[in-house]
């Protein structure tokens, strides 16, 4: 069994936003205009927010990068009427029911989207408690520097973070190791200057993520909703 997950150490995060930039570059996420900002249509597979508690002068705040949580029990997969969004199997060889889409051959419980099947009903967007799903309100511009490994998204469909599944797929094909600190990792993890993020297999007790998770106090976002996210935060 393989279960990919990520650990984000908030004590290390400085809020530089390198992960957000790296994500945009790696996944060819379309750039947003000031108009999109006003209309709340930003495409941010990876966003950095600040959460706070209390009133001035008694305030405590922390910077918090948020990505798709790749939940064990994802509300978005539950509500998709056309089975466009799905979870990749935990065991290798165990195929998803129909075409496996982008995540073909990659196990690990990633929540992915079959772009060719999505009808754009936006039900997953209202179901996601983390607001990590994004709708294409207009045609994305094709740029020379776009990553050829990542499929293009057309207008009218929903897209989301993939844990850089194209990297994982490539690594698997080339027989490379997957997971921090010395294996292949998603672009955000690789780009972080403070090594805030650790990526790897949660089911392997010897992996860096498992060791880190055992050693520190951790929490998941909105664990009360029963989604069981695979992104853990250390505080």
């Amino acid at each position, binding site marked *: 069994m393989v279960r990919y997950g990520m650990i984000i150490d908030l004590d290390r995060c400085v809020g530089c936003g390198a992960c957000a930039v790296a994500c945009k570059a790696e996944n060819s996420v379309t750039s947003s205009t000031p108009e999109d900002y006003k209309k*709340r249509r930003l495409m941010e597979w990876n966003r950095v927010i600040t*959460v706070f508690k209390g009133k001035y002068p008694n305030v405590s705040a922390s910077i918090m990068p948020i990505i798709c949580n790749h939940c064990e029990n994802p*509300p978005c997969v*539950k509500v998709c009427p056309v089975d466009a969004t799905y979870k990749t199997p935990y065991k290798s060889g165990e195929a998803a029911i129909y075409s496996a889409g982008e995540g073909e051959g990659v196990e690990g419980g990633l929540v992915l989207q079959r772009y060719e099947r999505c009808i754009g*009903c936006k039900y997953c967007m209202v*179901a*996601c408690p983390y607001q990590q799903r994004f709708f*294409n309100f207009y045609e994305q511009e094709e740029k020379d520097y776009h990553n050829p490994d990542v499929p293009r998204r057309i207008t009218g469909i929903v897209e989301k973070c993939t844990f850089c599944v194209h990297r994982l797929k490539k690594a698997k094909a080339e027989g490379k190791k997957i997971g921090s600190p010395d294996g292949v990792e998603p672009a955000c993890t690789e780009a972080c200057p403070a090594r805030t993020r650790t990526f790897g297999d949660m089911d392997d007790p010897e992996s860096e993520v498992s060791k880190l998770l055992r050693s520190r106090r951790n*929490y998941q976002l909105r664990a009360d909703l029963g989604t069981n996210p695979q992104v853990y935060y250390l505080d």
Partner: protein
Amino acid sequence: MEYTKIEGKSIGYYGVILLFGILIAVGLFEFVKGMSIGQEDYGTSNIVPWGLPITAVVFFIGASAGALMLSSLTYVFGKEEYKPVSRISIYVAILLIIGALSTIEGELGRPERFINLMVFGATNLTSMFAVNAFLYSGYILLSVVYLWTTFREDLIRVTKILGASAAALAIFVHAGTGAIFGFIVAKELWFSPLLPVLFIIAALTSGVGLLILILTVTFRFTGHKMDEKLVVGLGKYLTAFLLIQLFFVFIENMVRTYGGLGGGEMTKFLFSGPYSFVFWVIQILFGTLVPIGILFARKTVLTVQIASLLAVIGVFAERFSLVIPGQSVPPVQVAGRAAMGFYGEPAIYSISGAEVAIILGVIGALGILYLVGLKVIKLLPSR
């Protein structure tokens, strides 16, 4: 009881059809535009992905379910005094559910992939959309057969069985629509077991109200005389439904206020945010309390008509203040901590012309189908 068609040769008839035709043209223009360049003109955002069309869909389905349940008064419960309007209410119910499906189609990001619902829907039956796709199509088929049997005097027992099962299916259809929202754990204003029940009672209110309006207008313009007793009788049902609806809305909001999940931000937004006018003034005051007052004070054809109009607007406002404010406030990410600045601010949805055009187009198509139906099918009583 004898039924008749209308002649449909007057200038007025073709004038109204032309008017509806213009609405269809406007709607189609925006639909094709949205399909070719994307939904850029819509008022929706990534925070509020569902806008006015979804509100209209829920309203249409509700009115359809309500109208169909009302027809069972005659065909299932044997109340002969409602027979003049029961057949036409089945027809209206079929039209409204078709209108709801067309509005969904107009709202989808990729309308040409609509058929995927039928192809892949069965693989993910945890989705209320997939379940509803089957419920709605079954409902349309059953209603059409049910309408057909009302023309056959020899099939009166079949009509009774079909009427009862269609009314039962209508309950599930609208409870299923309520479940689209009621099952969403992420939205504090939506996640509630009461929602499917509230949807059914609101369906009855809007169904009766809309029928009273459509029927009195149709009877007036076709020169038929509408029995005052019949209208007042329907008005009595409307009063009861409005009272039950008020009670459910009260309970629902008491739970929201008392529980205060997620710091009660979403409830606060509903009660005092930018859409609080829709909730307090349109939904509660003019949509519920005023019609109840009017109906208690006096029941004549005119007062029942006014109360119906207000009740229908009130139910639409009820749907609006569920769908839009329910999404506006970004949910809390870490318990007890609020997001600072941009990401914590509620997203304000403003109604866009494109979305209104799509709804108007659907209304235009329904209007034409209704008028053609009056001309082709024997729907009106010949008195």
